[in-house]
């Protein structure tokens, strides 16, 4: 019993910690004047939001977030920052009027969103959100993986239309097609150009 109480307390602690880190670094991204720091703050912010994913019982997504988003995508962006970072345009200030305008827009939206968020309280089904690592969560990860190759284990028995539920194989294929297009497009865009401006058709 005491063990369970301990677990709850730790959960609270981690949630508050990760939430504060995420939001704090996000504020840092917004108000920092230095682009190198900005990019680094974003890495930290997203890494701590991976912690929030773990706390919500989404281990697979949390791991993906850490490995692919933080480890891959953002490191790529930091490369971009470093490749273009020259003091000439490293810090660009924005006129105060634009700040006010955007803060009004962003603040209005935020107020709406927060008003919406504060209406709902508990998790509906606590069993899936059990915070202690159990076999059921490992199962969730396996299920996610299976559904990406086209099997929906949760829909296999209970539905008469089980044949219709084909998991997420097609979205998986389409995402790979996205990546192919991006590969071609990025290679074309970023390649060194010699004759391009002169070859008007």
């Amino acid at each position, binding site marked *: 019993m005491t063990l369970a109480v301990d677990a709850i307390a730790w959960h609270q602690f981690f949630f508050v910690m990760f939430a504060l880190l995420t939001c704090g670094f996000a504020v840092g991204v917004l108000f920092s004047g230095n682009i190198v720091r900005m990019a680094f703050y974003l890495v930290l912010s997203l890494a701590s939001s991976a912690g929030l994913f773990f706390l919500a019982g989404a281990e697979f997504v949390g791991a993906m977030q850490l490995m692919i988003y933080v480890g891959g995508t953002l490191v790529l962006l930091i490369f971009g920052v470093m490749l273009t970072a020259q003091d000439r345009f490293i810090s660009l200030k924005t006129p105060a009027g634009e700040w006010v305008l955007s803060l009004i827009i962003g603040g209005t939206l935020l107020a709406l969103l927060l008003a919406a968020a504060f209406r*709902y309280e508990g998790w509906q089904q606590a069993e899936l959100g059990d915070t202690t690592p159990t076999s059921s969560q490992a199962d969730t990860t396996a299920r996610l993986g299976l559904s990406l190759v086209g*099997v929906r284990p949760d829909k296999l028995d*209970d539905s*008469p239309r089980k044949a219709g*539920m*084909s*998991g997420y194989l097609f979205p998986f294929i*389409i995402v790979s*097609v*996205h990546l192919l297009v991006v590969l071609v497009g990025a290679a074309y865009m970023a390649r060194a150009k010699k004759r391009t401006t002169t070859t008007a058709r």
Partner: protein
Amino acid sequence: MPVDLETILILVPEGALILSATALFVLGAADRRRSWWPVCATLPLLFALVMVVRDWGRPVLYSGPLIQDATGDTGRLLSVVLGLVMVLMAWRQTRRKLATEFFGGLLMVVAGLMLVSRANDLVFLFLGTELVSIPTYMLLFLGKRNRASSEATVKYFFLSLLASALFLYGVSFVYGMSGTTLLVGSGDLLGIRDKLPEIMQSQIGGLLPLGLVLVLAGLGFKITAVPFHFYAPDVYQGTTNVNAAFLACAPKIAGILALTRIVVNVVPAEFYLGAKLVIVLAIVTMTVGNVCALWQTHVRRLMAYSSIAHAGYLLIGLALGLASASSGGLHGLSAMLFYLVLYVVATLGTFGAFAYVRSRGEEAEHLDDLAGLSQTHAPIAAMLAVCMLSLAGIPPLAGFWGKLTLFSGAVELAFDMTHPMRGWFAVLAVAGALNAAIAAAYYLRVILVMYFKPPHSDSPVTADHGLQTVVAICSVLLVLIGADPGRLLDAIEPQAVRARQVPVEPELGMNAPDGEQIPE
């Protein structure tokens, strides 16, 4: 069996397009001459066309993340035709060195559009719209490489990022309300549509307005609805005529189809706030588009504002579809699809003609570049005039019937004494009629320039048969549809009604009753 066979079978055209696009990307690197690649892009499109026509009018079928219904059929046919026309337009207009990238990207976009038109799952819908927009960034960039083109690409890319973030946030609330990514369920499998009426009663239903606003904002960027329209004139101006034609059509088809899927097919009829929102959006959009178009002198900017105005007309159809579900009629949806087809055909024809005309070795840009076109190139001028008149909605042409179906739907609801929103639709109908009158002014101005201004010393044109063919096909189509609009409407109409019904079993869709006909 991880994936069932019927899902694979109804995805054959999309699969063929994606595979051949991949082949184009990969094999194109090996061939330096690259003169026969347009043919390679045409073949899979023709194959897809045959498949789509063969599948036309099949009974409604729910197959996992996909749905097979009238909206899907119309959207698929329209996308394939768009692809074919774009190949014809770009045949000689793209630099040969870039042909495989351009045509590969085009095939991907067509596949993305076809997926969006069929999507019955939020994940699928999102990936489909992204498959439209990601190759679009590339195509925009491939057009030409100068400062204006770079600026157009930057603006489009960043606004599109913002749009997809807004759309995704809206989608997250839609998902949050219902707890499923399936849009319309079948059998025991409940979708968002089936759960929403119940959810609306509960506390969590308060999220629907928020989600709807965000989704409308995100997709509003794609269809250039008004608060989110400001990029369109700049981007169209900065790119080539061929790319502008593409931009005026592909994202708009994607946006309208996605709105159909996620709003019209899902939101319950009792939710009038959605319809009111769309009506306000429609009125503002058409008014801003038409009024701003009045003093444009750059042809692509003019067409950009025209496309904004047409987004407003399309939103009328969306509002009709949202509001008329309770009163039984559903011609709002089919009127919108009908109008979309006509808009796409006329726009492609117009941009084809603009690309055909040259001035001083460059593409036509200024309205004065078209001066005296009737004397130098009478057939092109006549066909461009047909497209313009159709866009303006002058009676014998197809555009008139499109506007008539939309407005008559609004008027019908306005006179429906029992309908709670009749006042709104009355205002909408009046605003639409006024806008049609304003719009005629600037379309007629283009015709006046072509017919009554003296030509420049030299008005050379490209000897591009592809473009000639495109303009000819589009204008002939507009005249033909204008002569017999009922045929196309009937092809779209009865099925659209079926799409709205929730089949308890998939077999039920087979003997769905025909919908009521549009009064003419």
